[in-house]
């Protein structure tokens, strides 16, 4: 059982004083949710679990502790590990200040709210895991459990292609309907491991790039700019889409950017390592110039 | 269900009236006092000492300021340059249209102060809200006991309301003004030192139920409170005025709460005794 191993390794790290905190998951309000937990005392490790509901990407929490004394241990699935790489690449997290406990991930499941506990085998994968390209952690100090095989991801860009096929005005109408729903709670931004600016362009800092009215135009400004700001740095963890209370298809925007970047400037997967720079942070002399 | 008593409020709670800047006094390099009237030359509203007014430049923004004093036909706002709106105000000229709404907040407890000796302590721009009460006391001189003002700023150039502190107030009967600066210059002949130390040096007596009215930067307030405690002032007799971010001024928008109090309605004036029952979140 991964859960047992998690508790053992967490207890060991905390007891020996190698880390001051372990970031993992614990059971949430219902049997079908697991939620982030921050363990600082060895006697609390029993709260840790790993099951098919540990959907939250934990990597972003490292920013809260980047100036803290000592080390923080964090459990990383494939997507969390890529997020940690991303944050390290942006100098937001220092490798020697984190202890990465890798967990190969078979994909997270979801159960209809209010249903009785049932076997998880029959449950569907959550949206964000259906086209996961990296279920195994790409960076870790210890790996708990065996590597898993990559699922078929040929439908990764299906939603994007469907939208690309629409006519110009149809596209505008579709996105207009979506962005009209946006309540601008900024959950997508706050959960995103690529959004690491201490001061966001959209916060009230007098720059006023984004007005505070909730209307289509401001929501367009927010959503398009958000996608462009994480372009080349999105690790496809799907957290933005998962956390959106209005169920906006945000990954259809992020994946559009990924698809374009791959087609225009060569294949690139963000967060697979820290060496390969993101496509908008580099260039080639022979880059396409079809617009001239 | 919606029949509730409305406080006497000359201006609609969230929609201001238009006003004009009729005079600008440059107090220090970064503080100016703006005199505001309605376009037909009347006072926009009549605040009690210590109350607040929401002042705006229509195409820039609005913010809450203390009303530092008032004349028969105008209100005065002493404003320090700190952000977008205050920068724009500092660049305005006489005749500029502004919008104004208020008055908001509780103001100083005048009845409580009546008949007592009063000690006013101000630091920097913190003299601005206190001045509204000082001027009230000067105008109603017989209602109050002895008056003492202890005021300090970073440098002689940063002293605000120079006419009042150097000329007008010292001439008032039974009124004493003591000044200090953090750093002096060639012309400065007064005290040099921080306000809390100056208080201990002057050692004003708390006797006779003396009330102290205090306003300044948070760090100064913190140390002044220690000094006043040493001198024996009662918490009920130490009164200060707080600053919080405000948007509505009428207890609706939510952001100026300290615990269950709203600074815009229940403050900005609080006694130390009141503050000690509230969470330290200001």
């Amino acid at each position, binding site marked *: 059982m991964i859960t047992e191993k998690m508790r053992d390794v967490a207890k060991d790290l905390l007891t020996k004083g190698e880390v001051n905190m372990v970031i993992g998951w614990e059971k*949430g*309000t219902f049997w079908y949710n697991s*939620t*982030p937990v*921050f363990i600082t005392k060895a006697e609390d490790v029993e709260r840790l679990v790993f099951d098919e509901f540990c959907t*939250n990407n934990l990597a972003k929490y490292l920013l*809260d502790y980047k100036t803290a004394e000592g080390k923080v241990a964090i459990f990383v699935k494939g997507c969390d590990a890529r997020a940690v790489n991303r944050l390290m690449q942006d100098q937001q997290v220092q490798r020697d200040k984190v202890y990465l406990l890798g967990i190969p991930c078979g994909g997270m499941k979801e159960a209809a709210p*209010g249903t009785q506990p049932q076997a998880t085998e029959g449950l569907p994968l959550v949206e964000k895991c259906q086209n996961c390209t990296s279920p195994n952690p790409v960076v870790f100090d210890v790996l708990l459990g065996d590597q898993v095989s990559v699922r078929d991801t040929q439908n990764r860009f299906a939603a994007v292609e469907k939208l690309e096929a629409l006519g110009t005005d149809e596209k505008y109408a579709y996105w207009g309907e979506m962005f009209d729903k946006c*309540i601008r*709670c*900024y*959950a997508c931004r*706050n959960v995103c491991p690529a959004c690491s600016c201490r001061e966001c362009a959209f916060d*009230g*800092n007098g720059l006023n790039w984004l*007005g*505070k*009215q909730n209307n289509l135009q401001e929501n367009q400004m927010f959503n398009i700019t958000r996608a462009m700001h994480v372009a080349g740095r999105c690790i496809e963890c799907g957290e933005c889409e*998962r*956390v959106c*209370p*209005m169920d906006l298809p945000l990954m259809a925007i992020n994946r559009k950017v990924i698809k374009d970047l791959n087609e225009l400037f060569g294949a690139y997967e963000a967060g697979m390592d820290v060496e390969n720079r993101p496509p908008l942070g580099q260039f080639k002399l022979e880059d396409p110039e079809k617009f001239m | *269900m*919606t029949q509730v008593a*409305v*406080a006497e409020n000359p201006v*609609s*709670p*969230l*929609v*201001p009236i238009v006003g004009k800047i009729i005079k600008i006094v440059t107090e220090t390099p970064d503080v100016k006092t703006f005199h505001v009237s309605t376009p037909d030359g009347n006072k926009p509203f009549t605040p009690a000492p210590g109350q607040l007014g929401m002042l705006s430049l*229509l*195409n820039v*923004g*609005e913010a809450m300021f203390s009303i530092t004093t008032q004349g028969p036909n105008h209100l005065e706002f002493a404003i320090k340059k700190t*952000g977008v*709106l*205050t920068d724009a105000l500092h660049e*305005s000229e006489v*005749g*500029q*249209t502004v*919008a104004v709404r208020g008055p908001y907040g509780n103001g100083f407890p005048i009845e409580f102060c009546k008949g007592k000796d009063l000690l006013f302590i101000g630091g920097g721009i913190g003299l601005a809200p206190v001045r509204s009460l000082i001027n009230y006391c000067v105008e109603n001189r017989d209602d109050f006991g002895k008056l003492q003002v202890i005021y300090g700023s970073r440098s002689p150039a940063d002293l605000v309301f120079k006419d009042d502190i150097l000329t007008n107030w010292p001439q008032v009967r039974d009124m004493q003004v003591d000044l200090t600066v953090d750093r002096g210059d060639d012309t400065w002949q007064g005290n040099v030192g921080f306000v809390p130390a100056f208080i201990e040096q002057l050692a004003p007596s708390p006797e006779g139920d003396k009330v102290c009215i205090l306003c300044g930067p948070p760090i100064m307030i913190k140390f002044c409170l220690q000094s006043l405690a040493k001198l024996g002032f009662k918490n009920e007799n130490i009164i200060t005025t707080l*600053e*919080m*971010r405000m*948007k*509505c001024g009428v*207890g*609706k*928008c*939510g*952001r100026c*709460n*300290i*615990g*269950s109090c709203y600074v815009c*309605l229940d403050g900005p004036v609080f006694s130390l005794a009141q503050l000690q029952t509230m*969470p330290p*979140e200001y």
Partner: protein
Amino acid sequence: MKAIAKTQISELLNQVAREYNVLVPVAGADKYAPYTPGIELKLNSRTLLPPKDVFFPQTEKMYKFSTDGMEGSLDSLLTTPKPQLLFGIRPCDVKSIHCLDHVFLSKGFVDEFYAAKRDNTFLISIGCNGPAESTCFCQSMGINPQDTDEVDVHLFDLGSQYGVVPKSAKGEAFVAKYAALFAETTEEVPAVAEFTLNLELDGVSEKLAQMFEHPLWEEVSRKCIGCGACTYLCPTCHCFDVSARVAGTQGFRFRCWDSCMFSDYTRMAGGHNPRPSKKERVRNRFLHKLQYFPERYGDSLCTGCGRCLSKCPVNMDITNIIKQVREVDLV
């Protein structure tokens, strides 16, 4: 009790729509939407977005202005809307409107923008015979899920029909006016089904008053990501910002929902922020719901609708926090 068959509801709405702008919960929509004949209603649960925007829109223009050099003028944009009828709100949301009334209509200032819409809105509520969602806990917050008095007309869910009970003079007139659609019934209101989320609220407010400095806040705030989902979905959260849209010499000032969870919410012009980190912001949010508001207005600011619980990205659970508060040993 009078009653109307559920199949007759659209007929009722068709008729009242001649008199009112009718707002209803609609299948596939996230909030109350204008009623049009034939629209598919969703009357078995609460809406994702609360009805607060009917009285307190997410963005509301307050006045417009124009400037010309040093000159300038402004005009109020306060208008009186056509009478509207809000149909199908749940007792939890009725309670939330009661809370908003406290805020916008009391303590010396009436917010005219809110009042104009509030005074002009006829409320018809529908009771729940049990938890409508797994996240419902209104019963624990002292709300009767089946019944409410602070509306004009209340409907009890009797299975195939709704029991119709007027709750105000306006409601009496309404029931009389549409009497042809209502028949007498002897059917009883069924017993309330058991709630799966239950908690004890007694003494929590008083206990919280002593817990401002308690380490619990550091702990529970750690997983918060500081988004505004909870506050925007909350039926009682009412904080707003005031801002302006300026285009050259013209512009308008508006107010819009704001969230105490945002870092710039309390930050002042000089940079000082009384609530600088998420610990202070999370603490303020929960204390506002459970201590400050009860102290100020005598009502809890949480109605147990469960929206925050169902949509919080990190399962920040107010029922769990209340339970933890109860378990705290104050020495």
